[in-house]
């Protein structure tokens, strides 16, 4: 006897807010195309419920200087000599299939001298010229220097619809003001907590920033280092968004590359159990697994570091979008 099963479809009240990054010449910028995030009306990749209008995007990190010792060998060797030249690195990153370039400023320049707004302008200009992709720009994460660098970049790239980060509850006003004045967007970074994420979105919105220009960064831990907290916070934020809580409807960005390559699993070549397997493979798999889990839990942008992870995650997203 044939059994008829009704496909269990959920009805959602809300959708994720669309955010359009990058401005073309017609829109007052120089990008070859713009990129829309968000718009989903269901949980990730449940095509039987609703087609996602825009897939999650992959951003690739480019630094203002060669990361050197900050990155383990399997990661630096994957890029090679381009690490010395942000423009060449940007082009290599674009060639891996990146949807966006995430330019990350360190506290120092290539000579080890402190970074300044002036130097940041030069690096930013070179990167902007090297690619037509929309850009994310991250400061080094120290309030004063973040403000100096991001204000300089915001002015230099006026009209480009850059995504500037990271706004945190202790330091967001200057960045938001610079973004507002120059037609940019901001990321709102909070430490793995649904309510904190919501609050910071509200604070930034209260400064006059339209919600269509805010991307949240709910933060994550790497696989084995607290990923379950980030994973569940993202699931909860996305469920809240779909249930109609308007202040949780921002697209989400997370940085699995940064987190995964800090772990011992990615960094330690020797003195680890044989059960961990080959170093280079395991290190790469650590970034892949971290990023993949976050894509499943509703990330709209994952910021990655290894070219092979980019290929794998792009492949995974393309497969999942077929639903």
């Amino acid at each position: 006897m044939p059994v008829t099963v009704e496909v269990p479809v959920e009805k959602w009240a809300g959708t994720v807010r669309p955010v359009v990054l990058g401005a073309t010449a017609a829109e007052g910028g120089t990008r070859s195309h713009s990129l829309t995030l968000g718009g989903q009306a269901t949980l990730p990749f449940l095509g039987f419920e609703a087609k996602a209008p825009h897939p999650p995007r992959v951003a690739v990190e480019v630094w203002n200087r060669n990361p050197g010792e900050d990155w383990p060998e399997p990661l630096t060797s994957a890029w090679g000599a381009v690490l010395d030249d942000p423009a060449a690195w940007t082009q290599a990153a674009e060639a891996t299939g990146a949807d966006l370039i995430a330019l990350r400023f360190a506290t120092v320049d290539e000579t080890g001298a402190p970074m300044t707004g002036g130097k940041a302008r030069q690096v930013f200009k070179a990167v902007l010229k090297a690619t037509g992709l929309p850009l994310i720009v991250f400061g080094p994460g120290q309030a004063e220097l973040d403000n100096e660098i991001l204000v300089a970049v915001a002015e230099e790239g006026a009209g480009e619809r850059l995504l500037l980060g990271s706004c945190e509850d202790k330091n967001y006003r200057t960045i938001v003001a610079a973004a507002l004045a120059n037609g940019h967007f901001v990321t709102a970074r909070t430490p793995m907590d649904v309510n904190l994420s919501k609050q910071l979105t509200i604070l930034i919105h209260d400064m006059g920033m339209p919600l269509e220009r805010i991307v949240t960064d709910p933060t994550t831990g790497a696989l084995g280092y607290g990923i379950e907290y980030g994973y569940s916070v993202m699931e909860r934020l996305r469920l809240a968004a779909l249930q109609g809580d308007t202040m949780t409807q921002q697209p989400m960005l997370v940085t699995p590359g940064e987190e995964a390559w800090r772990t011992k699993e990615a960094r330690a070549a020797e003195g680890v159990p044989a059960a961990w397997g080959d170093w280079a493979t395991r290190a790469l798999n650590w970034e892949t697994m971290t990023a993949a889990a976050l894509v499943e839990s509703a990330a709209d942008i994952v910021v990655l570091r290894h070219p092979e992870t980019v290929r794998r995650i792009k492949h995974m997203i393309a497969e999942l979008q077929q639903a």
Partner: protein
Amino acid sequence: MALSGLEIYKLLPASSKDPAEKAHGNCKECGYPTCLAFAMKLAAKQAELAACKYISEASKAKLSAAAQPPIRLITLAADGRSSKAGNEIVLFRHEKTFYNPAGIFVRVADTLPADEIRSQAQAVADYKVDYVGLALRLDGVAVEVASGDPAQFAAAVAAASAAQIPLILMAEDPAVMAEGLAQAGGVTPLLCAVAHTFADSLSALTQLRRLALKKNFRPLGYPAIAFPYLGGGGADMEMILAGQQIAKYAGFVVLSRFEPAEVYPLLVLRANLFTDPQKPIQVEPGVYPINKPTADAPVLVTTNFSITYFAVANEMESSGLPAWLLVADAEGMSVLTAWAAGKFDAEKIAKTVKGTSIADQVAHRKVVIPGHVAVLMGELEEELPDWQIKVGPREAVDLPRFLKTAW
């Protein structure tokens, strides 16, 4: 899904439309004054269905089905080891928790020589990796008939069962399956096949879980088994798909090969996602050597909340400088939370210093406390008169600089 007392009452003789059955209603033979009272006891699981002799067969079937969990528990057992799947009650781990970690099995084809099968099965059985004091292990071996030959399949199953771990037998032909089963006493064969690609697997497994939990749809209320190597996209996509299936929502996952650099991240992912969100992973309290410390290396104290421990250990690790990390039993809370709750006070820190072997490991008597609990300084000096108390940074990220300059 459990029925309420009233729902049960509607199935008992007093509510029956059949006059013969209804005649028994409220007869008290079950030991309760009325059918309703009996129904309430049944709902509270304080009575047995068998106590009423007059329940119709149809009602009995409904009542015993309702007593089953929405997703049946399946246990694959071997001598001493077992792998369980099922009994899940939520779609999202934050709603409660995921209970039975997806079983991870490694496939071996029966076309391999018996020795090879034996050694692969043994490698899977022996694989063990330590993760924050938990021993993570694989669950078993899936023997696949690739030869089509019942005798060869049987020999392969016999070779694999020598490792004494749970087995999954993969054969389509019932005759072949029967030969294999004869060699593996006590194995529960799994019948469920699911869609294979990334998209189909996610849709199908999500629908199965929703039907079981939200629609109480019994025929599909069993753990599903997934074969990520059938997803297409080549060998390096297999691990990613396996990860997806562990998260959403396979009961068992069969890998095509045994590769430690893939198995380790998958086991950690599983351990992370199946952690009870109400009971975060705690690190064993004790002394943790970082970067091969010697007797003059610094000693730092933190709590046993896993994220705190990882943040601190990771920064110390990446500084490249040798040090001792002393982990106090703060009931799995972070530094500030534990301090506020009185679980990480001067007494607790002193107890950790005295209760571990740290005093024997180092020649000096200096200990660094987290910057967030600098206020404990005075009290701690009283509790540990032989030790000099130093205050470290508030945030883990600042530890490398602290170790380089301030120690």
